[in-house]
Structure formats: C-alpha cells, structure tokens
C-alpha cells in the first residue's frame, strides 16, 4: 500500500542521496504527474464504461487497470485461487473485478455470486457452466471452480476497476500491487536523475 506522497518522498530521498533539499531540481508536483503517467502506462488504464441491466450507470471517472501474471495456487479441494493484486472499486455484482482471463487472453472465467455455486450444483445442463471455469470472490482472493494448474494455467490476467489516476489525492492508496512499488520508485528515480545531475553540475560550475 503506497500513496503518491510516499512515492515522491522516496524518489526525492534517492535523488538527493539523503534528506532532500528545498532547492532540489525536482519538485514533488513533477513526480506526482510522472506517477500518473507511469501507472497509466504500466497498468494500461482505460476508460471504464458498462451498462447494467437495471439501467443503473457506473460512476464516471473510473478506469480499468490490467494486472498481468497474477499467480494461481492449487487448493486441496480440487480448486485453485489467486490473490487480488489491489482492492478494486466496490460495485454491484463485483463488476469491480471486470474480467479474469488466462495469460493468453483466450479463456475468460465466469463470475459467480457467493451462493450461486451451491445453487448450481443440482441444476441439469448448467451445473458445470457448460464446461467453463467459474470463480467466486472471497475477501481479497479469487477462488476458481477447478484447479487451473492442472490445465497448465499458472498465472492469470485481471482487469480491475480503479479510479482514474488523477482522482487519487496525494495521500490516497494507489492501485499498485505491493510487488511493483519498488519498480515504480526506481523507474521514477531513473527518469529524474538526469535533471538532478544537471542541477548539481551547474552548482559545481558556479
């Protein structure tokens, strides 16, 4: 869990090689803008627009973020599970978890509401969802109806509804998986390091 403010501070610490100075070449506001650009590019954020059968509309300013290579782990009950990389926006019917696919994007898994799997058991024809794989959301994890690892599916791609990156304030938790936080800090450091170096070179000349 990380916010724009924390990322900006970490980048500034690295640029200054210690406690940042007020006169540094890179300002926090510059880093905030760059964070937005990085997250948009890394998670392929796109405008989220869908229609509900009830006629309700999804709030504006939502985006879909794509998270690739989410690991799948076997469970002892013949099923498997994955952890949600971030907490998506809570929407009716778990639309916040917009889609879960295999890594190649060829198989889309079918969302089931918490009680539906039990109700489906004795329904002829559709009890195995016509041979497709269903999933249920359990807190921060996704439980699949079959063991995907037996099908050689060891990682999945998730598309989750998050806020448009500009909507996150400096202290809001960003939709970035914990495993990627360090990468983003390092990438931003690499992006701004030349600016800091130029300023330091100017100061030495002066």
């Amino acid at each position, binding site marked *: 869990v990380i916010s724009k403010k924390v990322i900006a501070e970490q980048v500034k610490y690295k640029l200054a090689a210690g406690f940042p100075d007020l006169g540094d070449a890179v300002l926090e506001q510059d880093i905030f803008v760059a964070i937005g650009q990085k997250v948009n590019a890394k998670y392929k954020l796109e405008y989220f627009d869908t*229609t*509900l*059968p*009830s006629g309700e509309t999804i709030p504006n300013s939502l985006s879909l973020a794509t998270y690739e290579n989410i690991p799948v782990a076997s469970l002892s009950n013949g099923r498997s599970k994955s952890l949600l990389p971030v907490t998506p926006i809570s929407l009716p*019917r778990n639309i916040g978890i917009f889609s879960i696919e295999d890594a190649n994007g060829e198989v889309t898994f079918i*969302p089931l509401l918490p009680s539906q799997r039990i109700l489906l058991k004795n*329904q002829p024809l559709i009890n195995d969802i016509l041979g497709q794989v269903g999933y249920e959301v359990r807190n921060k994890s996704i439980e699949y109806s079959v063991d995907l690892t037996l099908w050689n599916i060891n990682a999945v791609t998730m598309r989750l509804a998050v806020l448009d990156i500009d909507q996150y304030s400096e202290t809001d938790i960003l939709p970035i998986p914990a495993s990627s936080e360090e990468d983003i800090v390092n990438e931003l450091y690499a992006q701004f390091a030349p600016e800091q170096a130029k300023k330091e070179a100017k100061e030495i000349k002066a």
Partner: protein
Amino acid sequence: MNTLDAIAKSILLRKRFSIHWYLDSLIAARDCLRDLTLHHLQIVNTKRFNVDEFGVVDFDGSVADVVGVFGCSGMELGFNPGVNSRDALDGTYGDSSPVSGNIFVSGGTYEILAGRDKLNISGVSGAGTVLVSYIGDGRDADAATHIDVYAEASIEAYILWQFAEMSRTSSMGEKERLESKYIKQVDILRSVKANWNIPQLRRIVQRAYTRRYSELTINNM
C-alpha cells in the same frame, strides 16, 4: 446453428452487458430451450434402455413421449394401448396416435404405463435392452446441443424479457412488450415447424366454417 453458450453471450454483447450477467442469461436460455423442446421443437432422440426381469423399462424421467420402441434386432415392437396406458385411459388412442397401424407388427409389444415414466415390454424373450425413440423433456440438451436456427430468436426474446422482469427499473409496459415479443417469436417458430400443407390448411378453414354454421343452426333453433 448456435449453442446455448453462444446465444447467452450474444445477448450480453448486443445489450452491452458485462460477463457478470452471463449466468442469468444462460439460466433463462436453458429454461426457454427446455420449454421449446418439450412443446414446440419436439426433437426425437433415440437411446438404449435396460429391460428388467419383469419386462419393465424404467425411464430416467427425461422421456416426455415415446415415438417408437425397437428390439435388439432393430425390429419395431408394436404398441399395445393396454389397460394402464394413458392413451387407453383418456381415450385418445386412435387416428391421432403416432404409432397407429403398428400394433403387433413384430410379435413383441410395448405398453406405456400411466404416468409415462415406464414401459412394459411383452412378447420378447431375453431382451436385455431396447432402443427407444422418444421426445425428451428438454433436460437432455447439453453444451454441445445445437439450437435450431428458428428457435434462436425465441430464446433471445425470452432472455430479454427475463432481464426486464428482473430489473427494478423496467416499466410494466416494457415487460409486457417484451413478453408479447417472445410469444410472437414462438408463434413464428410453431408456424415454421408445423409443416402444414394446402389440404391441411383447407381442412382447418372448412372445420372453422362448419363450426360457425352449426352455431348458427343451433341459434336459429
């Protein structure tokens, strides 16, 4: 021809609904297919059933109507209306029976027991199994079942109607419009599947005319 899965997904695509409504769409499609199969499509299936030591064939509940029964050699068994048969009980056995004229053709006979969930085979010795042609109740459709092209429109109309029924924001007028659209599609399906010819249509008109004439006659009396 399409599958149930393809029909359920095509509705989601057309209405721009997400995959989260797939199961609702699929359940509605399944219900509609079952109804159409039982009442309108009447697809004839053929399946081998075991005959027990008393000559009784126990269906698994998926047989709605028996069309024909065949012995091991492939020879058709004759239909015996019997005292327990529903045909015999309700007096409908006659020209309208699909098996009239086949009585006792091969020596062996079968009797449909009341309730139509069992067959009683007689006159065939040592028959371990029989081949039964039947009209299913629609539950034997599966993921690979191809839907009749004329039934697709009916199933799609039914799904849309069910979505409106489940919606809190659909008006009564909208629900009724979609229901009548479904009924219209089923009428089209029935007319396509009816396979009527000119003499049959002429007979329908004649019978209607006769009824009007007799009503007039009764009124005048």
